[in-house]
């Protein structure tokens, strides 16, 4: 069974440009999460989808970030326009059951470098 896959693995862009990150969760997992880790800091929650609906987007830093999950399958996270502080590793995770189990399955991350 395929795990969570993320694309691209690494993206280098200039300040002001746009980048779109993609996440394909494990098939059948209704819950999809985006997290971000800035160098040396905690892994910070960005948002949570249940199927195609945004369950919680309290961690989204500002309106330059837009996440979608059309059809409840894969998700995209677009940053437009990118700023220097957006650099970091963006992790996607999925889970079948949000509830008592709560184990998340992570992708390998998309490293974003904004110059």
């Amino acid at each position: 069974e395929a795990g969570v896959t993320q694309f691209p693995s690494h993206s280098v862009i200039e300040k002001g440009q746009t980048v779109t990150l993609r996440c394909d969760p494990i098939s059948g997992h209704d819950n999809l999460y985006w997290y971000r880790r800035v160098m040396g800091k905690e892994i910070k929650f960005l948002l949570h989808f249940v199927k195609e609906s945004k369950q919680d987007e309290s961690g989204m830093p500002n309106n330059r970030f837009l996440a979608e999950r059309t059809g409840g399958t894969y998700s995209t996270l677009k940053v437009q326009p990118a700023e220097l502080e957006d650099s970091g590793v963006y992790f996607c995770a999925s889970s079948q059951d949000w509830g008592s189990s709560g184990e998340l399955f992570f992708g390998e991350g998309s490293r974003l470098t904004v110059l």
Partner: protein
Amino acid sequence: SQQGEEDPQALSIQEGENATMNCSYKTSINNLQWYRQNSGRGLVHLILIRSNEREKHSGRLRVTLDTSKKSSSLLITASRAADTASYFCATRRRSGNTPLVFGKGTRLSVIA
């Protein structure tokens, strides 16, 4: 906001020794989980302990939870070079539809 804080930030030990990492958190939780991240890879779930449990084992891993102190520890026994990685604790709040909250992690280096 609730946040797991791992201690120490970095730990270096010899192969065969035991490694202990600690985690503290701030609010009541439903469960606490430990994850491992190898350099450049994604996080891998290691073990989950529920709020009504005090200790749990999985292979060479032993996790304890003290809800009165809002703390947990992860013990890796007989460490191996392959255990070199960053270890994160993550907590899920007791009530409400809230996400897993991670800390900054402990960087473990096991020297062969």
